[in-house]
């Protein structure tokens, strides 16, 4: 059969049956769980006297509430300790593998899945977390679910879903110096809107996407949900296969690798696949992007002027006015020079090894501005260890960054890492919503890891391409 997208193929492979609602009952190949959205689901399961149907296809980590300074138990925060204990109890009772911080494998759920080879092309992956779309970078169909759906998956290893339309987003050309995956996805969201993807799954394609490493593709797919698309994916290719070959799942088993690869190659979109919509974006024109507002769609090139609300589409004007008031920015100006109090390099969007390497390159030999609190929160314990093996921790520390443990941290402020008062944060995370980073007056400026590094050095939003050379001491 031809004319099918990866989405069509993976959907068909995993279809169990059609439900009376017209929804499809879809088999879940991998269910990732964490401490915030799963305890209530286990509770519901208990109330119904049900058990976890496929514990072997379920994998747990702790990320949202975990402290990133002192991870010794019990955690200082009683509520965090209670959530951790509850998760430990649940995984023990159900026989679910759990990467707790003592294993060396703990980290943000969307970092550990791929790095362990749990995330494979052609699989279905769900997690009670909207950034599950990240795993689409491997050509998996991956999406976030709510807690009642977690209950469904625990009890049945299936979800009830409606099939979506597919929009192909083709990013042509080459990305310029200082421009990366984060700038591409912020550009896409700006262009298509924060709700432009509702009802769609995004297929990212084109030279600018294909030339990205797996980590870059993860950054792109990660923020699909910020554009309203519950899932996004990139067709697997040699880059994907080479990455997977080195993971735990396949490193010592070339036979298994070849067998799986045959399947992976079979589920890529056909050359003549039919799409419900196609959008083309010129990658040559993308510059480093920063947000000026309080939705991820409110982004601009670093040299561009902040828009006049009146010049925006009617339905965006009021939000824009509120955003500009909150952020205290003026239309007509660029974001360059916007004072920064905190620089946060972390999150499931941008805390993988290449992100840290690129940022370390920028800070190497420089010093964090005295007015800035700068922190690096690696995405996983493995990322942290690998970075330390390369001496990146030293580079960051010498520049004045805090080097912390793995977790979600200041992306959403569920542990002690939070903005205070009206602090402004240059952040490599994914959401600039009001209050997102733990303070309702806090101001978040989303940007790439290298742009966060540049802002940390100068104390203000800075075009990383214009950062002066390091003076020879």
């Amino acid at each position: 059969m031809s004319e099918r997208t990866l989405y069509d193929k993976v959907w068909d492979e995993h279809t169990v049956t059609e439900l009376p609602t017209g929804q499809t009952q879809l088999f879940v190949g991998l269910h990732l769980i964490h401490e915030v959205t799963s305890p209530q689901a286990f509770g519901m399961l208990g109330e119904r006297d049900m058990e976890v149907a496929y514990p072997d296809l379920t994998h747990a980590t702790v990320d949202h509430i975990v402290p990133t300074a002192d991870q010794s138990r019990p955690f200082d925060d009683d509520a965090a300790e209670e959530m951790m204990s509850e998760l430990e109890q649940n995984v023990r009772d159900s026989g679910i593998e759990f990467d707790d911080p003592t294993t060396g494998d703990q980290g943000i759920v969307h970092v550990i899945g791929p790095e362990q080879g749990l995330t494979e092309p052609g699989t279905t992956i769900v997690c009670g977390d909207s950034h599950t779309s990240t795993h689409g970078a491997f050509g998996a169909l991956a999406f976030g679910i709510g807690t009642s759906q977690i209950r469904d998956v625990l009890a049945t290893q299936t979800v009830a879903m409606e099939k979506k339309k597919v929009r192909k987003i083709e990013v042509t050309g080459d990305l310029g110096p200082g421009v990366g995956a984060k700038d591409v996805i912020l550009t896409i969201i700006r262009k298509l809107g924060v709700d432009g993807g509702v009802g769609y799954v995004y297929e990212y394609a084109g030279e600018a996407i294909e030339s990205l490493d797996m980590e870059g593709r993860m950054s792109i797919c990660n923020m699909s949900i910020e554009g309203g698309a519950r899932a996004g994916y990139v067709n697997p290719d040699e880059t994907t296969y080479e990455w997977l070959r080195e993971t735990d799942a396949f490193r010592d088993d070339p036979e298994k690798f070849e067998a799986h690869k045959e399947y992976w190659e079979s589920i890529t979109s056909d050359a003549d696949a039919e799409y419900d919509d196609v959008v083309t974006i010129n990658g040559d024109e993308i510059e480093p992007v920063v947000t000026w507002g309080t939705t991820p769609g409110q982004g601009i090139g670093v040299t561009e002027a902040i828009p006049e609300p009146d010049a925006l589409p009617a339905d965006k004007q009021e939000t824009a006015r509120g955003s500009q008031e909150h952020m205290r920015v003026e239309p007509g100006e660029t974001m360059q020079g916007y004072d920064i109090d905190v620089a946060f390099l972390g999150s499931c969007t941008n805390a993988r090894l290449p992100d840290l390497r690129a940022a370390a390159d920028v800070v190497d030999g420089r010093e964090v501005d005295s007015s800035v609190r700068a922190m690096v929160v690696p995405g996983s314990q493995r990322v942290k260890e690998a970075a330390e093996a390369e001496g990146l921790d030293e580079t960051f520390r010498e520049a004045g960054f805090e080097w912390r443990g793995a977790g979600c941290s200041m992306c959403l402020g569920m542990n002690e890492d939070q903005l205070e008062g009206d602090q402004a944060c240059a952040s490599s995370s994914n959401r600039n919503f009001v209050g997102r980073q733990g303070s309702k007056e806090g101001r978040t400026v989303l940007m790439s890891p290298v742009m966060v590094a540049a802002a940390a050095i100068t104390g203000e939003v800075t075009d990383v391409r214009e950062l002066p050379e390091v003076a020879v001491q």
Partner: protein
Amino acid sequence: MSEEVVETVERVTGSGIPVRGNDIDTDQVIPARFMKVITFDGLGEFAFFDQRFDDEDNEKDHPMNEERFRDASVMVVNANFGCGSSREHAPQALMRWGIDALIGESFAEIFAGNCLALGIPTVTADHETVSEIQAWTESNPDDDIEIDVADETVRYGDHEVTVTVDEAQRRALVDGVWDTTALMQSNSGAVAETAAGLPYLDD
């Protein structure tokens, strides 16, 4: 909860509360710090907390703080409501505050799915229709809005307007199959067959 009672949601009737603004994300509906809990109980009082209270817990200007909307059960919102985080804590908090249904211009997918799992309809209408209902609830805070899920209509005062209910949502609510766990569990044989056919689950 083990008894098999088929609950249907053909219509929801109650007074309305307008919460205006596009792109209201679930971090606003329930800030993350209130999610450090292992049950959903008690989340109702924290719904829209940072919009409703200042740092000293003094009430701010928000419809949910207004006495006249205290008993409202139909929330009337604008576009892309519930975007962002997948946290079911958001609809759980609204439900526990007293909301049984939402009317809006559009809803984020995960939020709407989470509402459905709780039997909460999320019906949609165009900007003008929604604005009129919002304005009407301001003037008639004690009067009922009737959402007919089966017929895809909303009645308020002397008005009756057509709304859209996603087809799967409509069937799930009207036929009482929105709680899918038992239904899907009954297909466990077919589930196992599907799993057996997946080439990557060979190990």
